[in-house]
């Protein structure tokens, strides 16, 4: 067993790794290196309850310093790791501190994709990844102001919902023909477009942003079709990039994310990668690998890495899952729909309670998107993880309960 474990990162994956190592009986030296100057915190509320003001900083922080002390974790919060020396088994921070490890866990997360157009650095252009980002955006979000959201993904839609509730005028600009195009089927996109439009949001699809206009502050967003959408503030939510550079420079295999095996181990047996920065085998989906940008993935990979380091049995992998809150709607997604050949809608979208099941040619369930429909989500998640098959006609029949459907799969 190692006697010095260093965790690079201070997000949800890093926190869970530390917790699981201690819970699993590790009593050696444990170092956590964060670079935001803040104790580890949850990111999901930043586009929801934290942004709206319903949840303060003390509640977003995962646990207080005393809890870290009790777990005997040496926490550094201004330690940005800039180099990894695999021969010396050490990492070095920007300010020159070196930390030696027997086992290293990279939980370096991701950063926002920058908008590649003129004016993107004007005052009033926001991204949303950190507490600092959320604070900056929140300060600018005053009732009556005009917010333009660039990117109709989860971050953009969640911020739009909070902004509408706060009395802002909101326009969402999406390059694809529909919002959530990368992550959800058309019926889900349609549902959210209707939801937001009913709440007073303007949604423009198939539009290309060419510039942010303004002198010091943002004044508008210019589109390729010649229109300019007036704006007092802009939120850019066009995806994230895994922080894999340090690993790559050290010679670890890392194309789109740091590549790991099923135990979250990288191509160097002493180094693990977990969370947003990692590309993992998608064990419920044949030979595929990929990055999963979710809390569930962060927690699960942290547990896998801890178990592997301590020589404990590998935790059972769940189907990937994810959630989003917008207005009074809870979207819960389990699984990955890539490779599905057809889908079945259960329930009625106009009732704001339905689910879309994605199946392959053998009627095997690959994914479910559930709107205010926990039974569909929970049963679907279980069926996906055991690679179960479902009869489409039964699935669409609301008189058959999800418990019955799950029992037969």
């Amino acid at each position, binding site marked *: 067993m190692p006697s010095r474990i260093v965790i690079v990162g201070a997000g949800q994956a890093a926190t869970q790794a530390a917790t699981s190592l201690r*819970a699993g009986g590790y009593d050696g030296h444990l170092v956590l290196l964060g670079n935001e100057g803040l104790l580890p915190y*949850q990111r*999901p*509320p930043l586009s*929801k309850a934290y942004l709206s003001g319903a949840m303060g900083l003390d*509640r977003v922080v*995962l*646990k*207080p310093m005393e*809890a870290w002390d*009790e*777990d005997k974790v040496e926490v550094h919060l201004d330690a940005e790791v800039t180099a990894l020396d695999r021969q010396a088994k050490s990492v070095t921070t920007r300010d020159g501190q070196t930390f030696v490890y027997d086992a290293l866990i990279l939980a370096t997360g991701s950063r926002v994709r920058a908008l590649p157009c003129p004016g993107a650095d004007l005052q009033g252009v926001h991204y949303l990844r950190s507490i600092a980002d959320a604070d900056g955006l929140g300060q600018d979000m005053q009732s009556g102001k005009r917010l333009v959201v660039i990117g109709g993904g989860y971050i953009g839609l969640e911020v739009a919902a909070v902004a509408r509730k706060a009395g802002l005028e909101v326009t969402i600009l999406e390059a694809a023909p529909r919002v959530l195009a990368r992550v959800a089927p058309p019926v889900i996109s349609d549902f959210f477009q209707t939801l937001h439009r009913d709440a007073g949001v303007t949604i423009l699809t198939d539009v290309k942003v060419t510039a942010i206009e303004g002198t010091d502050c943002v004044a508008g967003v210019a589109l390729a079709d010649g229109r300019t959408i007036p704006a007092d503030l802009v939120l850019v939510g066009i995806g994230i990039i895994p922080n894999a550079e340090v690993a790559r420079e050290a010679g670890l295999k890392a194309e789109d994310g740091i590549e790991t095996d099923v135990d979250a181990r990288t191509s160097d047996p002493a180094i693990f990668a977990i969370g947003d920065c990692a590309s993992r085998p998608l064990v419920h989906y044949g030979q595929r690998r990929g990055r999963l940008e979710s*809390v*569930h993935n962060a*927690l699960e990979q942290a547990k896998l890495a801890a178990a592997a380091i301590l020589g404990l049995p590998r935790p059972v992998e*769940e189907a990937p*899952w994810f*959630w989003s*809150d917008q207005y009074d709607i*809870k979207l*819960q997604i389990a699984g990955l729909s890539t490779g599905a050949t057809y889908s079945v809608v259960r329930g009625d979208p106009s009732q704001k309670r339905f689910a879309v099941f994605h199946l392959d040619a053998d009627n095997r369930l690959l994914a479910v998107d559930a709107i*205010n*429909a*926990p*039974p569909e989500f*929970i*049963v679907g998640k279980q069926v996906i993880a055991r690679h179960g098959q479902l009869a489409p006609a039964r699935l669409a029949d609301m008189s058959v309960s999800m418990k019955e459907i799950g029992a037969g799969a």
Partner: protein
Amino acid sequence: MAKVTYIEHSGTEHVIEVPVGTTIMEGAVKNRVPGIDADCGGACACATCHVFVDAAWIEKTGKPGSMEESMLDFAEGVTPLSRLSCQISMTAELDGIVVRLPAAQH
């Protein structure tokens, strides 16, 4: 602050002062009480913070909302005393509440 007694499945008790306005789940997670995972952080999205409220206190916690009820329906070993602890906000009235934790959350 209001007092919460968490009783692990093994019988180990944790008595914690939890700030009013925060949830029973948060009190457990922030004080390293094992047995409440709360993967979703309190969004009522994962059903991994299931607790059994002591019978003497269940009335005072109020009724679960429809999302919570629906999630709870699939929790392991659910009873009429089951709640998702992320959906119980601490109030002065709940000072002294006792909750029991299930064997496992997954």
